[in-house]
């Protein structure tokens, strides 16, 4: 029964080492699975596909560096899809750290993959403003009242793509890559519902179950965690294979995540087997 005792009390350092290996080894061997999009993710893709060129998309970066592995691929894939479709992308942030994360997309996606897109005509970076959901409420009717300049401090009225924008109702779609509050839920509550504006986006895996009550009437689609991001990347690459080399960050990360999930399941099973064997042993001892 020494084995039973060992199984019941595995040293946490062994678990830590196995989790580390579960992430490192698939990364080293480039373990990639085929990802199939689910209807809740495909709904976002179909909505963007259905919009005519020139439609206005507000993309909000509502996360920080801690959730980059989940949120950044979502934001990158959405930006890539909007720009390849010829939509106008308005980038902003309701998180202070969101502005810097938007810069990551600008450098790695917009400037690298869409060098022909003109700043102020095809896309603009409005930056971050304080106020959380109060900011969403304020820009609902008067965006230029809050955003008098872009992120670099240039007068907002000098950009052609801002001429037709008064408030949030002027956008055809609001997208948010979010990891907490304020985030996608606040965009639904303070903008989508109020102005009947379509809202969609992605959140961390932990937060995704909280947003299901809004789908599909108030939230037209949802990417949940890394899996959601991978599904969106897969569906974009399927339609636009020219992005195969650059647009599979989340798909590649699904290998380590899958193996890590398996290791967690393994330990839960081991813990339960040990628990039931222990309980049976105690029962037998009591009846003996």
């Amino acid at each position, binding site marked *: 029964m020494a084995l039973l005792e060992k199984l019941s009390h*595995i040293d*946490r350092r062994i*678990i*830590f080492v*196995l*989790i*580390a290996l579960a*992430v490192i080894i698939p990364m080293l061997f480039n373990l990639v*699975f*085929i*990802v*199939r999009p*689910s209807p809740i993710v495909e709904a976002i893709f179909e909505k963007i596909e259905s919009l005519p060129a020139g439609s206005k998309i507000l993309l909000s970066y509502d996360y*920080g*560096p*801690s959730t*980059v592995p989940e949120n950044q691929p979502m934001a990158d894939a959405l930006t890539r899809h909007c720009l390849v479709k010829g939509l106008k992308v308005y980038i902003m942030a309701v998180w202070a750290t969101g*502005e*810097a994360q938007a*810069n990551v997309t600008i450098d790695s996606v917009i400037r690298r993959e869409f060098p022909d897109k003109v700043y102020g005509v095809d896309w603009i970076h409005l930056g971050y*403003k*304080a*106020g*959380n959901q*109060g*900011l969403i*409420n*304020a820009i*609902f*009717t008067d965006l230029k*009242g*809050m955003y008098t*300049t872009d*992120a*670099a*401090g240039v007068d907002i009225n000098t950009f052609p793509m801002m001429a037709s924008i008064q408030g949030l109702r002027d956008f055809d779609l609001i997208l948010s890559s979010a990891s907490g509050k304020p985030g996608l839920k606040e965009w639904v509550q303070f903008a989508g519902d109020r102005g009947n504006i379509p809202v969609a986006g992605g959140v961390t*895996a932990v937060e*995704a*179950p*909280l947003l*299901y*009550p809004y789908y599909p009437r108030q939230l037209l689609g949802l990417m*949940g*965690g890394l*899996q959601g991001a991978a599904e969106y990347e897969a569906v974009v690459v399927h339609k636009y294979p020219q992005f195969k080399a650059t647009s599979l960050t989340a798909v590649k990360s*699904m290998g380590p*995540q*899958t193996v*890590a*999930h*398996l*290791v*967690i*399941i393994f*330990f*839960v099973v*081991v*813990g*339960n087997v040990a*628990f039931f064997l222990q309980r049976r042993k105690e029962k037998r001892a009591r009846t003996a």
Partner: protein
Amino acid sequence: MRREIPLIITFIIGVALVVALFIPRRPFPELDAEFSRWFDIIAVFAFVLGGGNLLQVHVDRITRKHRDRWYSVVTLAGFLLTLGIGLLKVGGDAGLKGNYIAEGTWFKIIYDAVFTPLTATMFSLLAFFVASASYRAFRAKTREATILLIAAFIILVGRTPLGYYLTFWLPEPLQFLHIPNLSAWILSNPNLAGQRAIMIGIALGIIATSLKLILGIERSYLGREK
């Protein structure tokens, strides 16, 4: 008057914002927009208040020679250094309107080389603790715990490509047992019902609390009476 004036402001703004939602006619939408702008301006001052509070707590800890004072020294040094570099836009364009996080600024270097790895590390550590905690705590001790455990298994596997590979061979009549379908069903039905119940409860609580604030019944936000 120190208590009456904030109560009157709360009442007027609270009533105006509620009315604006139901009566979209002048002057309510304008009032709504104006009050929202005021809120955003006040929100900026929360940063000053937060910074002041941080200074107060940690300076106090250092002066009292608390055993954790060296952590406070690191916190204050990091805070003041980042604040100074950000305000002065070191390495970037000078002036109030200059971009503090433009390429080449010291603030951007701090963000990329210190803040990003630190926060990412803290968040990544969760994976190790979740694995360890799952092993220790996730035991099918009761019927409810067993249901939770089965649901967790399905979601854990269903949220990876593995879920597809395990059960894709199931014939059409049994497709409801396909793990990704089961995972989606759990999220869209039992989870949805639970979330809605919680949300409705929270909403009712918020309405009650808001009414108490607007009507001046709840006054704790004004601080203690002297």
